[in-house]
């Protein structure tokens, strides 16, 4: 059994999906950020709202900003969050 990925959610994404963090095995056929988002969206209304098409969700993989094309591997730390608003 392959190592799970760790998924983190921040700010309003965390509130919409109802969790700050989870670990799961990468689903069959999910090899990119875009594919993972499609898979998450199908999980339920909270996830569908958080990852609505045309939304402004950003992603980081292993603490570096990622794009929809970024590839995923077992053991990765994947984070989803809104555009940043610090400073």
């Amino acid at each position, binding site marked *: 059994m392959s190592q799970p990925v760790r998924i*983190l959610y*921040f*700010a*309003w994404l965390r509130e919409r999906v109802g969790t700050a963090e989870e670990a799961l095995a990468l689903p069959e056929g999910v090899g990119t950020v875009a594919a993972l988002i499609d898979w998450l969206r199908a999980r339920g209304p909270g996830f569908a709202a958080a990852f609505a098409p045309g939304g*402004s969700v950003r992603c*980081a993989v292993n*603490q*570096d*900003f990622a794009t929809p094309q970024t590839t995923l591997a077992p053991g990765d730390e994947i*984070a989803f*969050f*809104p*555009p*940043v*608003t*610090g*400073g």
Partner: protein
Amino acid sequence: MATVRVQAEPFDVGAAMAALGAGRNDIGGIGCFVGTVRDTAGGRKITAMTLEHYPGMTERAMAAIAAEAEARFDLLGCTLIHRIGTLQPGAAIVLVLAAAPHRAAALAATGFLIDWLKTRAPFWKKESFADGAAEWVAAHDADAAAAARWQHG
């Protein structure tokens, strides 16, 4: 040498400036920016601002921004301190210090650092309003434009 910190506690601007210049006489100027919590947003009264961050990635992103500034502006050092947690109007949120041999680089680097910090470090602000509502702050196009101008500098 860059100092990067994320903390809940208030920061002491004088102490941070003294630490940046400690033991050296080659600094000609230190640029300084302090961001504070404004008491209104879109005409509504704010009672508090809460800052969330991504532990680990935030420090990495801030260190990368500091390293970029040090290389671009030939800095002798810089300091980035960002607060997290719930802050009251008037409270300081963020401190940027940039030390250089001459003022032009110190001032330009200070602007660069705060512009990049606002658009590249994973922090999120939530505003609490006097009527009891609490809303996540949306990213501003003006901040993206301010950060983008450094692409050509």
